[in-house]
């Protein structure tokens, strides 16, 4: 059925009248023009803008350093009454997390199918790294993987995310081209897109009841960003 349908659909599309096809859109040129029109922001301005935009989405930004972020996270967990914090035990951050003495540290070390009820009902918070941030919109970039599974940033009511301020991009386009998401010459044009890539801007929300904004629709009720900056930028 589906192969007949396929052939019929493609045949109908191919037999439709075609005028002169438009040239490929110049998306790079569009963003280059926009970039040239506005003065480039320095690092401090980028950090400011990111914090301002993230605050608009009700994301809580906490400035930390390379050496004290785990301690800051511990203090936040205490303040928010977090008794179980999900983390990836194989990640580069694991050692620092384990050394910080965080109460109820829980590794995501089994397939979700083995412990769904516990994940959904008895996990207060999740901690993940990020691949960067977007200043224009106050957005985090996450590429979940086997070390940091997808549901860590979705199911627990609080999501803590670690973001390095040197990984801030001006906009979505700059982020995907800067990180070569769709592949580059070195990768012979092979896409680097992972199983799942995510942009996250604030905690989950809805305005479906009488356009009244409410947070914590299905995902996290709180999003806390640990923004890693230099000592003097604190």
């Amino acid at each position: 059925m589906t192969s007949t349908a396929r052939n019929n659909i493609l045949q109908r599309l191919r037999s439709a009248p075609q005028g002169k096809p438009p040239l490929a859109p110049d998306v790079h040129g569009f963003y280059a023009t926009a970039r040239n029109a506005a003065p480039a922001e320095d690092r401090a301005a980028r950090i400011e803008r990111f914090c301002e935009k993230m605050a608009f989405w009700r994301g809580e930004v906490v400035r930390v350093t390379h050496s004290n972020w785990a301690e800051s996270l511990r203090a936040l967990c205490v303040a928010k009454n977090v008794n179980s914090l999900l983390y990836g035990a194989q990640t580069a951050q694991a050692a620092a997390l384990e050394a910080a003495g965080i109460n109820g540290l829980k590794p995501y070390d089994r397939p979700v199918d083995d412990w769904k009820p516990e994940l959904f009902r008895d996990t207060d918070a999740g901690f993940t790294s990020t691949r960067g941030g977007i200043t224009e919109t106050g957005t985090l970039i996450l590429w979940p993987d086997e070390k940091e599974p997808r549901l860590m940033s979705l199911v627990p009511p609080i999501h803590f995310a670690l973001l390095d301020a040197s990984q801030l991009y001006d906009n979505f386009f700059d982020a995907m081209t800067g990180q070569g998401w769709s592949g580059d010459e070195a990768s012979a044009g092979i896409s680097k897109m992972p199983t799942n890539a995510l942009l996250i801007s604030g905690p989950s929300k809805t305005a479906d009841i009488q356009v009244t904004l409410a947070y914590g629709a299905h995902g996290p009720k709180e999003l806390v960003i640990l923004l890693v900056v230099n000592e003097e930028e604190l």
Partner: protein
Amino acid sequence: MSAHENSQPLKFIPASEFKQRTSEAVSDELLRKSFRGAMDFLMAKRATQFPDPVALEAQRGLAEHIRKYSLAHLPDLLEQLERNLTANGIQVHWAENAEQANAIIVGIAQKHSAKLMVKGKSMVSEETELNHAMEAVGIEALESDMGEYIVQLDGEKPSHIIMPAIHKTKQQIAKLFAEKVPGASYTESVDELIGIGRAVLREKFMTAEIGLSGVNFAVAETGTLCLVENEGNGRMCTTVPKVHVAITGIEKIVEKLEHVPPLFGLLTRSATGQAVTTYFNMISRPRQPGEKDGPQEVHLVLLDNGRTQAYNDEQMRSTLQCIRCGACMNHCPVYTRVGGHAYGTTYPGPIGEIISPHMMGLAATHALPTASSLCGACSEVCPVKIPIPDLLIRLRGEASHDARPGHAPLVGQGAAKSALMDIVWAGWAALYTRPALYRAFGWLATRFRFLTPPMQSGWTYSRTPLKPAARSLRDLLAERKRK
């Protein structure tokens, strides 16, 4: 008891009874208040996102270009998408109509002995009436977008493509929850109401065997399905169950990943006046070895359902540029007054008026393109510059005459043809192209004006009858000149 067992049988509203329903809708004070308030809110929020009209024009120009380019290469891009998705491990299915699409999804569900399917927001699955097909074989299909959950609980269909429950007040929703959700007590607090929905649906995400979603953009070069949402239910449906089925119209495709940011930026700003949504979810593969969550199977159903008819005509093809932001309905004076349900179609408002005839045929939908004052607000705000008023005029014409030479007839071509109308217009044309006849008519009309009938069909349903003046303008001007 589940929400589904408690929900009402769906109320069907045929599109062909559009006129009757619009008069009911305009006299419903609560409904009009809900829509007026929400549309004013959405228009104001959109406006704050586009302070610079020159920049907006540049963005719309680029977005239109991307969509036109994608459509010009549609068959090639569909094949490229299929190749890359398949290489990534995502199974691709093709459906010419709603029945085929539903049969494919029912087949997948039955293969996995599914009892429950949780659904992220998908207007295409509304279009195919998927929930009925699932229920017919004993599989519960539960909407998990808060708005969709509310309308499903009340046995209704969405009244807006972005805000499905916009026609309801919070008091109505409070009453609905208290009656239908086990254990819920009456509360008008929106936070508490959302909390009730959250608690019910989280249990369902955990137990559902299948998750269904729509697609906002499908990227051919990488084999990636993109989903836009605020709530997180879309991520739940595409991550927690063992199987994820995505369904989309064949037109929602772009060639390159870099084509996505300009469209995404305009979609959310035009739809709800947000610079970005909470989540932008890009799915390229099922769960890989070593990964601990995500579905083990991912399927994509590509649906035609009349889209190739629109594609077959170079003017009407622009209908398929749509990225489903809903700005046209938010700004439509008719939609704001009659609401989404009056249309009786999956897609209401201006976009519904130009896409529904291709999906359902002109016989059922010929009244829809007439539900416009042609004010042009829709095309002015359309982020991909669809010339909606031109298409409305075109479809009014197609409904009232046979296919023109060189054009294939549309389904329901000429459905609104009327011999009386043809005679009236032929008479009108004769009068206005023959000066002698025109003068004679003017002379007679001013003298025998007392013969004008008091009942004048559609005109007198809600207006006083027309009557020629005692003296024509031409006479009055001539007299003035003489003085």
